[in-house]
Structures are given as structure tokens and as C-alpha cells.
């Protein structure tokens, strides 16, 4: 093609980091939608659901009036948010007391429980649905291996990045699927409540997430958390355009951190771009602590005790002077270099809580109809884009949930109430435009 002779224009690499974060979010949402559409046969049976922390105040039944359902859902969400807040404060306390090892072990344990028990249950549902012949021993061996590799992938930073990313997406998908089993009104009110909680927790001065992030920044430490890190963008001086991972040395970027400060404001649209080899774009760290899934989980009891989601504060690391101290550590432990979005690689990090709640929204939309799925998907991706742009503009820690969830809920309601009738009517009469 003629284009090979031309120098590469900016269109070739602009926006690559954003696409690299949108892709796994989309994959997670797609898998949850597929799971939901395969496994949800009848809604009536799922409402007689297991007792969970989210339905402790009120169990929705089909025969209640709308107002009762709404009040019940509100109570449920308040209880849930209260539990999440309490657990997050405990997390902040533990982090403050430097019990990092305990937190890491706990993280590994919860990842194992999610993969083994939740994953196993969903696998059993699928086997039942498709009458797949498999015996217990094989199944247990495979499941055990799968879960252990997952825990290793989450723990060890030297693992192949694709494996880690895949496992994080799978964990997000499993937890999101379980959330979709909650009753309908509870799910929607819970989503809105979590979005508001996220907003408060990150932006208010007493918010637990803000405290956590500030603690981590002041100590230059990594919060032990389930965080998805996008593959870093290859830069032009390496000459290759196929995403070769090149871990950039800290010192190379130190010089430009000050210079790039001015550039970002004028390039608000171009957040995350690594157009030049000096990476004058924004270093977005959508860092988030996350996922403290404590399942006191026997399969029979199925009590989801707490699911503390520390959803994503987005932090712009460029403004942080502490980063300069990093270069002295040089090749010190990966744990430091890969701290909250200290993308020595400049890659975007997104917390697993965001994956989960986006997928819950889309999964719940899938339980109604596919039109709502498409509308909610577009809304969520738009919300994510808006959040990234706001980050480039405000340059401080921002929560990633509120904009997307609010847009998603809005679009769901608009589609369900307005659009569906319109489109069905038009299509039936073969009126298309």
C-alpha cells in the first residue's frame, strides 16, 4: 500500500492507551452478557435467592408493589454501602499500620476463593446446561490448577502480562455474574449507591479511598490490590509498531515531567497519548485499590459476606514530586516501580471494581433485552472516555464509577421506556432510516 512510503502520521498511535483499556472492559462485559444470556432461564427462580449481604434487609418478591420494592432496595443498598465503607476503613487502618503482608495474603486468598468456588459453581451450571460429560476428579484437578495459577498471576509481577490480564478479567467476570443474581431493583439501586459512594470516598477529605491513596503516595508504596494494568504503549524510537513492551527507565522520563505539565492542558482530548518518545502525554494512572472479596463461602451456604470494592480513583502521577525519588531506587523491587500507576511504563491502570460494576450494569441490562445492552455499553464506554478526559483536565484523583454508572442507568431507562417502543414500531412497519 502507498502508505508504507509515507512517514507515520499521528493517527497511527493516537488514543492507543485508551483503546487498550477499553478492550478488556469490553471483553469482560461481553463475557458477562454471554453468561447471563446462557444461564438465566427464568427470572422468577432467581429472586428466591441466596441470602447475601446485599439482600439482608429485604428480599424482593415478585408480588410487592413498586414503592415497596424501591424502599427495600434502598435499605439493601444502604446496608451494603455501610458494610463496604466499614471494610474500607479497616483496610486503611491496616495499611496505615503497615500490615502489607497480611493484606497481600488476604488478596491472594480472596482471588483463590473467587476463582475456585465462584468459578467452579459457574462451571457446574454450564456443565448442567450443556450436559457436558466430565467426572469429579478431572474437574477438581483442572479447577484447582486454574485457581492456583490465577493466584500466582495476581501475586507475582513477573508473570506474562497477558496471563495476568486474562485472569483479572476472569475474576471480574465471575464476581460480576454473581452480582447479577441479585434481585432487579436491588441491583439498580445498589449500582447508583456504589457510584455515589465512590464519588464521596474519593473526593471528600474524609473519604477512605482518598486517605488510602494519600497514604500510599506519601510512602511511595503499592497498595496491595487487584488492579488491571494495560500493556504499555510502544514508542516510536523503538521503530516497531506492534506493541513491543519496553519498560522505560525512570530517569528517561524525569526530565520531561516538568515540561509536559503545560502540554497536557491544551491537549485535553489527547489524554494518554504517547506521541513522542519523550512521552509528553499524560501519565494516567487509573489506580484503584480494589477488591476485597471475602467469601465465607461454602457453596451450599453461599453467603457473600462482604464485597468491599475500592473503586478507581484516577490519579495523575505527573504532578507528584515523590516520583523523583523513585529513580534512585532504580532496579529496586517491582513492587515500588509498579505502584499506583507509577507506570514506569506509563500504562493506564484500572481497578477491578470498575470492571465488575460496569459488567453488572450491562449484565442486568442483558436480562431485559439486547437493545439495552448496546445502549448501556456505549454509555459506559463514553463515561470512561469522559472520566479520562476529566482526569487530564483536573489532574487529581478521580473516581471512575460515577460518570459511567450514571450514564449507563440513564441510557437504560431511556432505552427501555422510549427507544424500544419506537424502534420496534418503526421496524414492524418497515420504516427505517
Amino acid at each position: 500500500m502507498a502508505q508504507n512510503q509515507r512517514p507515520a502520521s499521528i493517527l497511527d498511535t493516537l488514543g492507543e492507551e485508551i483503546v487498550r483499556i477499553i478492550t478488556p472492559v469490553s471483553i469482560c462485559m461481553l463475557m458477562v452478557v454471554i453468561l447471563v444470556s446462557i444461564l438465566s432461564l427464568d427470572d422468577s427462580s432467581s429472586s428466591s435467592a441466596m441470602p447475601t449481604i446485599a439482600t439482608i434487609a429485604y428480599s424482593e418478591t415478585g408480588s410487592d408493589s413498586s414503592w415497596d420494592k424501591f424502599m427495600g432496595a434502598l435499605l439493601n443498598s444502604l446496608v451494603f454501602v455501610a458494610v463496604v465503607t466499614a471494610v474500607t476503613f479497616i483496610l486503611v487502618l491496616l495499611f496505615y499500620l503497615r500490615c502489607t503482608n497480611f493484606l497481600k495474603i488476604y488478596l491472594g486468598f480472596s482471588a483463590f476463593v473467587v476463582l475456585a468456588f465462584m468459578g467452579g459453581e459457574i462451571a457446574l451450571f454450564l456443565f448442567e446446561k450443556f450436559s457436558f460429560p466430565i467426572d469429579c476428579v478431572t474437574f477438581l484437578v483442572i479447577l484447582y490448577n486454574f485457581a492456583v495459577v490465577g493466584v500466582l498471576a495476581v501475586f507475582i509481577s513477573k508473570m506474562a502480562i497477558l496471563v495476568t490480564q486474562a485472569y483479572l478479567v476472569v475474576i471480574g467476570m465471575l464476581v460480576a455474574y454473581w452480582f447479577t443474581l441479585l434481585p432487579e431493583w436491588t441491583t439498580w439501586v445498589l449500582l447508583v449507591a456504589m457510584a455515589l459512594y465512590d464519588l464521596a470516598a474519593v473526593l471528600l477529605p474524609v473519604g477512605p479511598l482518598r486517605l488510602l491513596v494519600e497514604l500510599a503516595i506519601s510512602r511511595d508504596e503499592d497498595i496491595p490490590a487487584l488492579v488491571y494494568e494495560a500493556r504499555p504503549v510502544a514508542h516510536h524510537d523503538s521503530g516497531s509498531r506492534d506493541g513491543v513492551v519496553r519498560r522505560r527507565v525512570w530517569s528517561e522520563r524525569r526530565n520531561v515531567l516538568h515540561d509536559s505539565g503545560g502540554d497536557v492542558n491544551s491537549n485535553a482530548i489527547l489524554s494518554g497519548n504517547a506521541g513522542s518518545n519523550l512521552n509528553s502525554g499524560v501519565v494516567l494512572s487509573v489506580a484503584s485499590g480494589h477488591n476485597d472479596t471475602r467469601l465465607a463461602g461454602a457453596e451450599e451456604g453461599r453467603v457473600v459476606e462482604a464485597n468491599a470494592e475500592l473503586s478507581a480513583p484516577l490519579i495523575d502521577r505527573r504532578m507528584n514530586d515523590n516520583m523523583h525519588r523513585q529513580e534512585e531506587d532504580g532496579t529496586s523491587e517491582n513492587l515500588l516501580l509498579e505502584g499506583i500507576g507509577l507506570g514506569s511504563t506509563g500504562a493506564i491502570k484500572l481497578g477491578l471494581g470498575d470492571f465488575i460494576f460496569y459488567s453488572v450494569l450491562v449484565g442486568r441490562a442483558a436480562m431485559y433485552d439486547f437493545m439495552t445492552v448496546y445502549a448501556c455499553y456505549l454509555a459506559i464506554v463514553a463515561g470512561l472516555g469522559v472520566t479520562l478526559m476529566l482526569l487530564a483536565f483536573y489532574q487529581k484523583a478521580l473516581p471512575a464509577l460515577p460518570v459511567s454508572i450514571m450514564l449507563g442507568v440513564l441510557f437504560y431507562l431511556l432505552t427501555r421506556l422510549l427507544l424500544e417502543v419506537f424502534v420496534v414500531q418503526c421496524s414492524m412497519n418497515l420504516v427505517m432510516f
Partner: protein
Amino acid sequence: MTVAAGIGYALIALGPSLSLFVAVISKKPFLILTVLSSTLLWLISLIVLSGIWRAFLPLKSTTWWPFALLIISSVGFQEGLRVLFWKVYKRLEDTLDAFADRVGKPRLFLTDKMQIALAGGLGHGVAHAVFFCLSLLTPAFGPATFYVDRCPQMPFFLISAIIALAFVTIHTFSMVIAFNGYAEGNTTDQYFVPVVHLVAGMVVKSAFARCFCLLSQKFSLLRILFLIVLKNCQLSPETALVVFVWLNVLCHACSF
């Protein structure tokens, strides 16, 4: 009718756009973002339209003029949106050029601009196909099929899939033509696009009794459109060939 049939209908509607996406758009992340944002924009326009028309639905199907009004208002709204899209694009182009100067890269080439226009059009087309065809396809995965009064010769899903295919092509390429027309101040091109859109919408509505005539009319319109696009733009020969072959196959299949 079955999962296979459902997937078949989905591929009829979205096949060429999928090939376009894989061949042209997936290589440049900026174009992926453009597709997503133009899809969102089209969805928002559709929601606004449905909000306006909600009070008047369901329309009585015996008279034709409410539908004509619906089509005219919708097409007018969407064409207005295209002008808005153009204005936003102009500002974006300036920003991108400034950024390119800053990082020492060449400014946007003509092919880049056309690719952005193509991505924008593809977003609109995919949105149409998704909301008018794919989202109604859920029953097609089951054991039965569905016929509409307006055209009892073919299953409804097949009709909507073929019409969606036609509209995908129309949307995709009319964006390219429109942007080219706005850029060069070529008024013929500028007016050609809304006219084609309107005619396509009307043709679908009016030929309700003669399904096959309808489809072959629509496709000859498409062929004209396509030839104009080929004349004006420099699409890569592979993608042009792919889409053209698809169109011709379907034309011949439908007009027997």
C-alpha cells in the same frame, strides 16, 4: 430459526462493516474511538427522536402520511447532526494538527481525513444495524420465525438484515462524501447526501407490497452511491472490492 440462522442474519447486516473494521479501522486506535463516539451520537439522536415521537406511537398503519412525517423529521434531524459532526470534526482537526506540529510529525494527510470520515460513517451505520436489526434478532435464535404484514414473502429478520446492510453502506459512504463536500465547498455533494438518505428511507416505506422491487431499487441506488464514492475517494482497492462484491451478490440474490 436456529442459532445458525440468527448468526447468519447478524452477519448479513454487519458483514461488510466487520471487514471494513478489521481491515481499516482496527489498525488505528483513533479510528476505533471515532467509531465509538459516532455510534454514541447516532444513538443519542435516535433517543431524542423517540422521545419526541413517543407520544404519537403506535401509529395507525393504514395511512401513510404519519410515516412520511416520521421519516422526514428523522432524516432531517440526522442530517442536521451530520453538520454538527462536521463542525466538531473541524475543531478536532485543528487540535490534531497543532499536536502534530508540537511533536514533530506530519499533519493529517488527505487519506487520514477520509479515514476519520469513514470511521464516523461506519459508526452511524453500525449503530443503525445494531438498533434496527440486531437488537430485534433475539427471537431469531429460537425455533421459529416471524413475518410482517407489509412483506409476507420473506421472514422479517431477513428483510431487516438486508435493509440494515444497505443502510450501513449508505451511512458509511455518505459521511465520506459529505465531509469531502463540506471541505471542498462542493454543493452537489453536500446536497446529494441528505437526498439519498431521504430517498432511501422513503423507498423502504413506499414499496411495501413489492418486496423484491424495493430491494433491487435500493441496491441500484447503492451502486450509484458507491460509484460516486469510488470516483471521489481513494479507498484501498481491497476494501472497495470486498464491499462492492458483497453488494452485487446480494443484489442478484434478492432480485432473482
